[in-house]
C-alpha cells in the first residue's frame, strides 16, 4: 500500500509537468502580442515594450520562458500579472470563492442525486421514477448557461428571492443558486448512476440471502442494496470535485462570482501566460489529488480491491 501511494505520488510529477507545458505552449501560440494588447492599440515606445517584455521574460525563447516559470514556481514565486499584482494574491482572493461554490454544488448534487436515485431505483416503473428520469435527462441535455440564466431570471428577477449576481465576497445565499446550477448536470448523472446501480443490486443473490436471514426490508435496503451501490457513486462523486472546480467558469461568469474560473477567463483574454498556467497547475493538482483520494477511498469501500 505504501509503495502504491509513493508510485502514485511520483506519477503526479510528469502529469503536472506535461499539462503545464501544454498550457504554456497554447497560451504562447495565442495570436497577437499580449504586450501590444496592454496599450489597447495606442502607440507605445519600443523601449517600454522591450522593458515589459524583459520583465516578463517574453523576449526569451519559449522553452526558456517555460523553464524560468517552472523554476520560480518551485519556490512558490508565480510572478506578477500585467497589472502588477502578485499572481499568488489574485489566486488567493479568487480560490476560496471557487472552493465554496464547488463544495456547495458537491453537497447539493450528492444529497439530491443519491436520494432521487435511490427513490427511483427502488421503485422502478412507478410514476415518480419516470418523472425523475425525464427531469434528469432534461438537466443533462440542457447546457448550464441555459439553466443558469433561467434560474437567474425566475428566482432572481421575477420572484426576487435570491440575489441575481454574487457580491465581491459571496456568502451562502449568494452562492445558493450558482451552486445548484453548477451541480445540476452532475446531479442528474448521479441520479441515473444510482438508479441503475440500485436496480441491479436489488436482484443480487446476497440480497435474497439477507432477506432469508430475517432482516427487515429497511436494513436490507440500507446495508446490502444502497451500501453496495455507493461504491461506484462515491467514486464518481470524488472525481467530480475536481471537475466542479474546473467547470465553474461558465457559472462564475453568469453569476459574476470572483472565482478561479473568472480569473482564468480574464487571463486568457489578456494572454497572461503566467496567470493562466498557475491557475491550470493548481487545477491539475486538485484533479490529480482528488483522483488519488478516490482510488484510496475505493479500497475502503470495496474490500475486493487491493492495491499492490
Amino acid at each position, binding site marked *: 500500500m505504501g509503495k502504491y501511494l509513493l508510485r502514485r505520488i511520483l506519477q503526479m510529477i510528469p502529469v503536472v509537468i506535461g499539462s503545464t507545458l501544454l498550457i504554456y505552449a497554447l497560451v504562447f501560440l495565442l495570436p497577437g502580442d499580449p504586450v501590444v494588447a496592454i496599450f489597447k492599440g495606442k502607440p507605445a515606445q519600443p523601449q517600454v515594450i522591450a522593458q515589459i517584455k524583459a520583465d516578463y521574460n517574453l523576449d526569451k525563447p519559449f522553452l526558456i520562458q517555460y523553464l524560468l516559470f517552472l523554476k520560480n514556481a518551485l519556490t512558490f514565486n508565480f510572478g506578477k500579472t500585467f497589472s502588477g499584482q502578485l499572481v499568488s494574491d489574485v489566486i488567493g482572493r479568487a480560490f476560496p470563492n471557487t472552493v465554496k461554490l464547488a463544495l456547495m454544488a458537491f453537497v447539493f448534487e450528492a444529497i439530491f442525486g443519491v436520494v432521487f436515485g435511490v427513490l427511483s431505483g427502488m421503485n422502478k416503473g412507478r410514476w415518480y421514477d419516470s418523472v425523475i428520469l425525464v427531469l434528469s435527462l432534461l438537466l443533462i441535455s440542457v447546457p448550464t448557461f441555459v439553466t443558469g440564466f433561467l434560474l437567474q431570471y425566475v428566482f432572481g428577477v421575477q420572484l426576487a428571492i435570491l440575489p441575481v449576481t454574487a457580491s465581491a465576497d459571496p456568502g451562502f445565499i449568494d452562492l445558493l443558486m450558482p451552486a445548484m446550477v453548477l451541480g445540476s448536470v452532475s446531479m442528474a448523472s448521479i441520479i441515473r448512476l444510482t438508479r441503475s446501480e440500485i436496480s441491479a443490486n436489488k*436482484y443480487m443473490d446476497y440480497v435474497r*440471502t439477507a432477506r*432469508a*436471514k430475517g432482516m427487515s426490508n429497511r436494513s436490507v435496503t440500507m446495508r446490502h442494496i444502497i451500501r453496495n451501490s455507493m461504491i461506484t457513486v462515491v467514486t464518481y462523486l470524488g472525481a467530480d470535485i475536481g471537475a466542479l472546480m474546473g467547470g465553474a467558469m461558465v457559472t462564475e461568469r453568469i453569476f459574476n462570482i470572483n472565482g478561479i474560473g473568472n480569473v482564468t477567463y480574464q487571463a486568457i483574454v489578456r494572454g497572461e501566460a503566467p496567470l493562466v498556467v498557475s491557475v491550470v497547475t493548481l487545477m491539475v493538482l486538485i484533479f490529480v489529488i482528488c483522483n488519488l483520494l478516490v482510488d484510496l477511498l475505493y479500497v475502503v469501500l470495496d474490500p*475486493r480491491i487491493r492495491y499492490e
Partner: protein
Amino acid sequence: MSAKHNDGFDPRRNVTIHKDAVAPDWDADTNDNIPTEDLAPLLEVTDLSVDFTGEKGRAIHAVDKASFTVYPGQWVAIVGESGSGKSTSAMSVLGLLPGTGHVTGGSIKFNEQELVGMGEKDYERLRGRYIGLVPQDPMSNLNPVWRIGTQIEESLKANHMDVAREKRNALSKSLQEADVKVRRTDDELFIGSQDIDDLVRTTQEALASSHIENAQGKMRKLRHEWVVGSETRWAVAQSLIREGLDEETAWKIAKNHVTGSSMKDRVAGLLDEAGLPDAATRARQYPGEFSGGMRQRALIAMGLASRPDLLIADEPTSALDVTVQKKILDHLQEMTDTLGTAVLFITHDLGLAAERAQYIVVMYRGHVVESGPSLEVLQHPQHPYTQRLVKAAPSLASQRMISAYEEGAQDADAGLAHKQKAADAIANGQAVIEVQHLVKKFKLPHQKEMFRAVDDVSFSVKKGMTLAIVGESGSGKSTVANMVLHLLKQDSGKILYNGVDTSTFNSKDLLNFRRHVQPVFQNPYGSLDPMYSIYRSIEEPLRIHKIGTKESRLKRVKELLDMVELPESVMNRHPGELSGGQRQRIAIARAMALDPDVIIADEAVSALDVLVQDEVLRLLNDLQAQRGLSYLFITHDLAVVRQIADEVVVMEHGKMVEHGTTDEIFEHPEKDYTRELLDAIPGGKLSLGVDL
C-alpha cells in the same frame, strides 16, 4: 428464546407438542425431534401453484398443484432438473419468489399456520428464526463488502438473538413470572472468550482434586469440546458430570465460569460449528478471501444461526467439488441432527438425495410426479420420468456406456468386448497425444517461490480412446488441458501430437494442429458468442480455415446439426434462445466442424442437468464410435469418468497421483486420495433401481 414470544408472532400457537415447553437444549436431546406418525407436520404444502408473469402478461406456470410434507427433524429432498419448479416451491415457502413470481393457489402451512397471503412483516419474523436458508451459489450469496462475521451477526441481530439482550429479556421476564425455569436462561449463555481460561483452570483443579482417572486426557477432550460462543452453560455442566464430577461441583463451575459470550464469540462459535477452523480470525475476513467451500460453511452458519426449525438447503453444494461436497453435507447432517432441524433439501442429483434424505419428492415441469421414502423411490420408481432419472443418474451408473454404433454392441457382452478392445488399445495403440513430464509454474503474489500448478505429468491419449483427468479444483487439470491445446506454454516437458513435438510448430503447423485438436469448454453460456447466430458460430471454424464454398459450408453446418441431433431450424437462432444442453450440442457441433482427431473436453458436461448430461455423454460416445475420435476428458466428477473413460489420470496439487484403466481405478484404487474421491461420489453405495 424469550424474544420470540415478545415479537407477537408465534407460528406454533396451535401445536400440541410444544418444543419450547421443554428446555430447548439443542445440543443434547434429539429424541423429541425424531419424526413419528403422531407428530404434527412442520411444513405442509398442499396443491401449491406458482405463476410467473411472462411477456405480454402471459402466465407461466412454474409450479402446478405441488404437495409435500416435512416432519420435524426430517430430511426431505426435492429432486428435479432445472426449471422443474423445485427451487420455486422452496422459495415460496420463504416468501422470496424472484421477480414476477406469485402464489396463485394452494396452501403452505408451517406449524399449522397458513403462510400464503401473509404480510411482509410477518414473513420477516418467520425468516431466519423459524425457517433458514442455505442458498445455492456460495460465490454470489455473500455480500462482498461486509466481513463474514458481520454478515452472520446480521442474522443474529435480525432475529433478536443478540445474546446480551436476550439475557436482559429473560431477567425482566423472571421478575414478572415466578415460575420461570432457571435452565432456560442458562441455556442462552455461551462460553465467552473471557471465560474460557478460568473455566479450563478451575476444571483442571476440580478434576485433580476429585482424583479422577486420566484427568489429562479428559481435560484435552473437554478443551476440544468447549468452543467459545458455541457451548452453553448447560452443556458445559453436562459434560463435566459426564466426565465424573459430581452434579453440584459441575453446576458450580458452569455457573461461575460460563457467564455469557459477546456477539463476536457467538459468531465465531457458529462458524466453528459449521466446520470452519480458526473461526475467530476467519470471521474478520471478507468473502473474497474465502474459498467456495469455506463460503458455503459460512452460509450454513448463517442459515442455522438463529436455530430455525426448518432449513431450506437449495442445492447447497452443487457448485463445489465432490470431496468438499461430501464433507460439508456430512457436517450439515450432523448439525441438523443434533439441533433437531428439519431440512428441505433441493437437488438435481437423485443419488445425493437418496443418500441424504429419508423422503424424496420428484418434480417435473412444475408437478410433483412421485414422492415416497428414498429407497422406495430409487428402487421402485413408478413414474416414467423418475425411471429415466434413475437410469441417467451418473452417480448410480456402474459401467461405461457402450455406443450402439460400436461393433458387436448388440451382443449381450458388448461391455466385455469394449473392455477387451480398450485394453488392447491402451497397451499397443497409437498415441495421438502424448504428454511427457509436463511442468507449469505460476508466480503467486507475495510469494517468492513459484507455485507448481502442474508438476511432472505424463500420459498418452490413444487413438479412438478416452482418457479422463480427474481432480478437485486447483489440481491443475485444466492447466494441463490448456497446455495441450497450446493456449498456455509449459515450463518444461513435451507435448507430442502424432509423435511431433508441438513446441516446434510454426504458425502453419499450429493452424493445422488447431484444426485437428478441438476444445469443448465447460460453460455453454460463455463459450458461444451471444451476438452470433448458431449458423455463424458453427461455420466460423470452416471460414477461418478457408474450407469449401459458401454453399458447401451451409451443407456442412446442416450435417453437423444433424449429427448432434438438432433441427436445421436452430441455425438462425441465437445462443440466448437455446437451453444449456442445446448450447453444449452446438459447441460440440462447432468442435466437430473441422473433422478433428482429438476433442479436449474441459468439464464439458459439469454444468448440465443429469438427463441432459446423459444425452450429451451418449452423443460424444456415439461420435467416438463412429469416427474413431480420441477424447481428453477433464472433469471433477468420477461418476462421469466411469461412464465415458477408458483410462484415468488422477491429479492432486498438480501431481499425478494415480494412472490406470477405469476398471483398475474404480475397483482397486491404490492411493488414499483416489479412494477419497470415490467415496465422495454421492449415492455411490446405493443399489440401483430394481424395477428397471
